[in-house]
């Protein structure tokens, strides 16, 4: 592998290494860690974070940021719960409505960012406050869901039986499906390539005649859609809606994206990396649970340290490739 090519993939390899190392450490230290159940839970428990993080990856690759993720997840969950339980809306219809609202909400933010040249940080911050508040307006507290679709269909019938004790939850299936679709969009559609171009050099993309304005709005719409979808997965996972939930989820998503090798400045990013980042965060949590005597806040510290290390790594790699590119 020629060095300049490997340069781009170095952070991704590092992520894979960290993931493998953490998993290996867990298997060595604890019995049952290498069991199927643990692996399945890892994917299933973090399904909604994974879906949200995939949407966040697109935004960050394009050079933007979306702080509204957690609030939209919470908003969507309570919206669905309220629609299904209190207004008798059919589950699939409620889900469809929620996804549409998520996409429109994201698109509106994207529109403000593009056409009024407002900083994404502030616009999505406003979005975060808005979504959070409106969620509470729909219903002021956690709302359980009794509807059959969520309790039976999703949990039982849509779960994939792996063996007589373990089944792969639907939340995990959703996660995998979004990953596959997301990868397809990122690598096989023109839109996906425009996302990378925008993040790489917006000025050049404009001069190349790429549809910058349209792409930007659509990216935020996509992120809003993914956040709403994550909210749907959340309702599958918890069988309830909660306007107070997922506070700070956007930070977890961003951490997963950075650990996954995506540059926060944009232009370079891997969905596979984000997925690994999500699994790493989940693994840390699992390891701590297994250890028993370590407290859960270590997750935050370790996550912060990982983010720092990966940012440092990104900086080193980009300055190294800059030096390489400068020579003939």
């Amino acid at each position: 592998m020629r060095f300049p090519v490997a340069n781009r993939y170095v952070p991704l390899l590092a992520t894979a290494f960290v993931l493998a190392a953490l998993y290996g450490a867990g298997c060595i230290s604890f019995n049952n860690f290498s069991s199927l159940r643990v692996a399945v839970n890892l994917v299933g428990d973090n399904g909604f974070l994974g879906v949200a993080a995939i949407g966040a990856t697109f935004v960050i690759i394009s050079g933007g940021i979306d702080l509204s993720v957690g609030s939209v997840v919470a908003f969507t969950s309570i919206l669905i719960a309220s629609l299904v339980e209190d207004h008798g809306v059919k589950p699939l219809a409620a889900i469809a409505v929620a996804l549409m609202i998520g996409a429109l909400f994201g698109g509106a933010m994207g529109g403000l960012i593009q056409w009024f040249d407002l900083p994404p940080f502030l616009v999505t911050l406003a979005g975060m406050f808005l979504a959070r508040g409106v969620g509470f307006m729909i219903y002021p507290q956690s709302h359980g869901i009794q509807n059959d679709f969520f309790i039976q269909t999703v949990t039982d019938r849509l779960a994939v039986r792996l063996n007589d004790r373990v089944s792969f939850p639907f939340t995990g299936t959703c996660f995998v499906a979004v990953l596959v679709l997301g990868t397809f969009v990122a690598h096989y559609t023109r839109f996906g390539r425009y996302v990378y171009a925008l993040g790489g050099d917006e000025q050049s993309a404009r001069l190349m005649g790429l549809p910058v304005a349209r792409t930007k709005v659509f990216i935020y719409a996509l992120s809003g859609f993914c956040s709403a979808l994550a909210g749907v997965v959340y309702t599958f996972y918890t069988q309830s809606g909660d306007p107070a939930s997922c506070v700070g989820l956007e930070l977890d998503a961003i951490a997963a994206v950075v650990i996954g090798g995506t540059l926060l400045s944009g232009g370079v990013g891997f969905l596979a990396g984000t997925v690994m980042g999500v699994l790493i965060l989940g693994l840390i949590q699992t390891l701590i649970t297994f250890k028993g005597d370590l407290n859960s806040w270590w997750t935050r510290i370790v996550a912060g340290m990982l983010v720092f290390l990966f940012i440092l790594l990104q900086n080193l790699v980009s300055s190294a490739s800059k030096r390489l590119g400068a020579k003939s």
Partner: protein
Amino acid sequence: MSGTMETEAKSLLEIRGLVKSFPGVKALQGVDFTVRQGEIHALMGENGAGKSTLIKVLTGVYSRDAGTMCLDGIEIDPHSPKAAESLGISTVYQEVNLIPHLSIAENICLGRQPTFFGMIRWREMARRAERALARVDLKLDVSQSVASCSIAIQQLVAIARALDVSEKLLVLDEPTSSLDEKEVGELFAILRKLRDQGTGIVIVTHFLEQVYAISDRITVLRDGKLVGEFETANLPRLKLVSHMVGREITQTEAGGHGPLDRDAGAKAEPLVEIRNYGRSGSVAGMDLSIGRGELVGLAGLLGSGRTETARLIFGIDKPQTGEMRVDGQKTAFRSPRQAIRKGFAFTPENRKVEGILPRLSVRENIVLALQARQGLRRMISRKRQLELADEFIKRLGVSTPGAEQAVGNLSGGNQQKVLLARWLATQPRLLILDEPTRGIDVGAKAEIEKTMQQLRAQGMAILFISSELEEVVRACERVVVLRDRAKVGELAGEGISEESIMHMIAEHGHDH
């Protein structure tokens, strides 16, 4: 060489009477421009000539106010780069606008990737990219990222992209600024090949030698107007320089003015001395010395390396060769702060980007450098700041409603004066002025010239960079002449005249 000269090769692009104005500036005033099929046409002009405006109108970035543009006989009016591209006009800019982390293949095909029901066909795209590269005689692994290639290769990739869109008209804006001699040669070979295949090529460049090496015709603009279109083979260098500068010159040897008030004597030991100081991509190693009380001029056409020289001396750029001595001591500046501590000062040419702090007041802009040198704690009292501001506002004639006016609201000329005031307040030993009189009214220009002479008489060393030759000739007792990013000579005392400078620029050879 341009092979057999057909009497009238088919004209590809015809621009007639192009007019474009911006608030306060008449960028183009009725310019004609013709490019023929199978021709390399150089577009040249000094600052404010209108070159970049013409290119931007041609490539759809600006819309024209008046005039006609015809491509292949059909009138066109591109209103965006994409529209221009689809008409057949492709552009490669100096900064090589490619997406660094994407592959060569992607960069070539971005926006036009081959698809199958919306799905990108990567292998087909790679093949297409390879075909595009073959047109510029390149055979590379198209999956590698553009950022991992040298600038020269990136440029060829950009050209390949442009050709992939259309082979009709190719516009190259300063394509050789970052290339070394060998790469320039390779690029020119490609351009000649394309020309022979019928592509019309417009090349905007400052390098005189390159223009003579590659172009078939030259169009010269000055102050928004067309000076003329010439066949390269029939245009002597001296004539070209004279057209660009706007001064008639006879072929007779340079005659000088007598020195006006120059004490040609007292050769004090130099304050600053650089030997073989240079940096690749900036200027070739050069020798220069400036003594106390000397007013040295740096003359040359746009792009000849004058600003680059100033940046090297002031410590903004670091040299790769040579050494500098200040007060006889070997010195190396790692940053402008160190230069400032040695008593250096620099008013940059690009005052908007590198000079003024637009939202801060006149007073704050003036005291900044002095305050920075004094440090955090020794604050210049408000009273003293106002005194300084008032003093310089009066002394340089800055037209402002008050010392608290935001500098961004002042006219360009007044901004320049504020910038000058900033450095004068530090009472420097060496003052480097890069185009200090650009965009300033005549009266103020005289003021600045007078101030320079006063400062010189008081013992300040001054390096004066200006593209207005008559200013340089009038003010300086020694002139260093640059051409194509290298020093070509030095004139002193009686030998200084506009003609002698122009001769020196026009002649071949690089004597230091």
